[in-house]
């Protein structure tokens, strides 16, 4: 058990049908993120020594209650958020060792899908001009598909290209966000509560889309969620977080059917009766 905690995902965890590669897409070692309260000077550890390893094409989930440090972990792990200590390697490059410029390039290998789909689109940009901007940033990388084809991939009508974010429904906006992530052909997709901001009726569709995207592109995925049903539908491995620490990790099935940690059991018991069992 202790060994498992240290190494993050255990050996032999489900490997998606991606490019087989030895270098993990993301390797987090002893990550610490601290927030200092400016008035009292108190230090709060949001993330406390987390280790995590995601291989190519793998799909891992971080679950836990609100405030357990899931999102902070994801932001820090991708180099977008603050980090107080620990090592992070993206595709074998240590974030400490590479310069700003290289970091910016490396970040393109990692795309994020946020919780609030409207908030993650610039409200002054139509879908088309947003995509045009992305293409301008990375010409070769994004040349593989045209706008209409891209929207079709996420099952949206090309008619939506000229809409502005506020003219899209939540589900449509989230699909646009996924399309934007997809366009960059990332090696890792970080999905931060991708369905929490959506109606229940579209949640399943978006999850299905995420799974399909992962399977067709071979991208690895790091899913942040408090919803165990969501995690179980999409991910191979699960890491349960509490108070900034990973209390249990392992293959989804194992974690959810025979939880080893008390907290995981509590979490499972708190789920509305058997909802996650019904799926899949």
């Amino acid at each position, binding site marked *: 058990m202790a060994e498992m905690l240290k190494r993050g995902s255990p050996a032999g965890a489900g490997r998606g049908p991606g490019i087989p590669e030895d270098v993990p897409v993301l390797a987090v070692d002893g990550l610490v993120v601290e927030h200092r309260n400016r008035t009292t000077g108190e230090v709060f550890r949001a993330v406390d020594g987390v280790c995590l390893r995601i291989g190519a094409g793998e799909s891992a989930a971080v679950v836990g209650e609100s405030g357990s440090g899931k999102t902070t972990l994801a*932001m820090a792990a*991708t180099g*977008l958020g603050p980090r107080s200590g620990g090592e992070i390697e993206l595709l074998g490059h240590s974030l400490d060792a590479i310069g700003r410029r290289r970091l*910016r*390039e490396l*970040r*393109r290998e*990692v*795309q*994020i899908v*946020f*919780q*609030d789909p*409207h*908030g*993650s*689109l*610039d*409200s*002054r940009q139509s879908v088309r001009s947003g995509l045009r*901007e*992305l293409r301008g*940033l*990375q010409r070769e990388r994004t040349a593989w598909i045209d706008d209409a084809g891209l929207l079709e991939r996420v099952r949206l009508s090309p008619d939506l290209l*000229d*809409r*502005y*974010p*506020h*003219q*899209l*429904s*939540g*589900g449509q906006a989230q699909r646009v*966000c996924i399309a*934007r992530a997809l366009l*960059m052909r990332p090696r890792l997709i970080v999905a931060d509560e991708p369905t929490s901001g959506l*109606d229940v009726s579209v949640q399943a569709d978006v999850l299905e889309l995420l799974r399909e995207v992962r399977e067709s592109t071979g991208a690895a995925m790091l899913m942040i969620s408090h919803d165990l049903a969501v995690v179980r539908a999409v991910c191979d491995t699960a890491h349960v977080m509490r108070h900034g620490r990973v209390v249990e990790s392992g293959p989804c099935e194992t974690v959810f059917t025979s939880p080893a940690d008390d907290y995981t059991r509590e979490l499972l018991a708190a789920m509305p009766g058997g909802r996650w069992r019904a799926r899949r």
Partner: protein
Amino acid sequence: MSRLELDSRTSKGEAPKAPKARKPRRARTSVFWLAMPLLVIAALVFVLPVTGLLPEEGQDLTRTRQPPAFLSGGTWEHPLGTDKRGQDVLTELVTSGRLTIMIGLVGALVAIGPGVLIGLLAGYFRGWVDKVISILIDAQLALPFILIALAIISNRGSSLPVLFLVLALTGWAACARVTRATTLAVRERQFILGLRAVGASEARIVFRHVLPNLAGTIVALGTLQVGTAILVESALSFLGLGVVPPKASWGSMLASGQDELSQAWWIAFFPGLAITVLVLLVNLLGDALLTHHDPRKRRR
């Protein structure tokens, strides 16, 4: 307001049908009804002198302090009366209105430009840049503008460039403060993080994404600043520090009519009324624009 909320709710529903966004009707009409009279005033001030309908310019000492046409003793030759040098008040009002409006517009621009830029930098980059700028803003706002104006004008003499310098110095801080606050809100939106994730440069994020999202605020700020600039100019001219003869603005007309108030109130009254109406309209328009600015695009 409830109408607007309802409107935005439906547009976020499952399948919004309207291909183009409809502007909230109430907000647009209020902006329209405030902008119209302003356009009329501007048109009057710029077009009337060309038509030749106005009484002639120039002094006429045989007919000083004539009352307006609607008072006994007044004639339609001089609809708003004449001043102590026999100049027609209406003609002067119209010709000096041009300068007043010009000062208002340029004065707003010179305050808005640096103010917005400084506020944007402070709000986006935070850290020591923000600290230094915030202290400067507080210091600037603590200084009475009359003191600054006196210091500069007594040093440089009064001329239009000096007036604009004073307007820029007194106006930038308020603009910077509002811009900074709005920038703070915009930079926390998730799409900024998303842009970093695709490797967009900071300059691109600031000028292509943050700035456009501030556009509504800036337009409203600019409108309010036009009113402020006109008021500041009037105050300065009233004190003899602003526009000096032979040039005239509404403020300087007010000043020259001041000592005649008991005998010929109309000399000071009409420019005063003009300033009040113009600034009131401009400020109401600014407020309307501020509330009109994307109530539906900004979520919560």
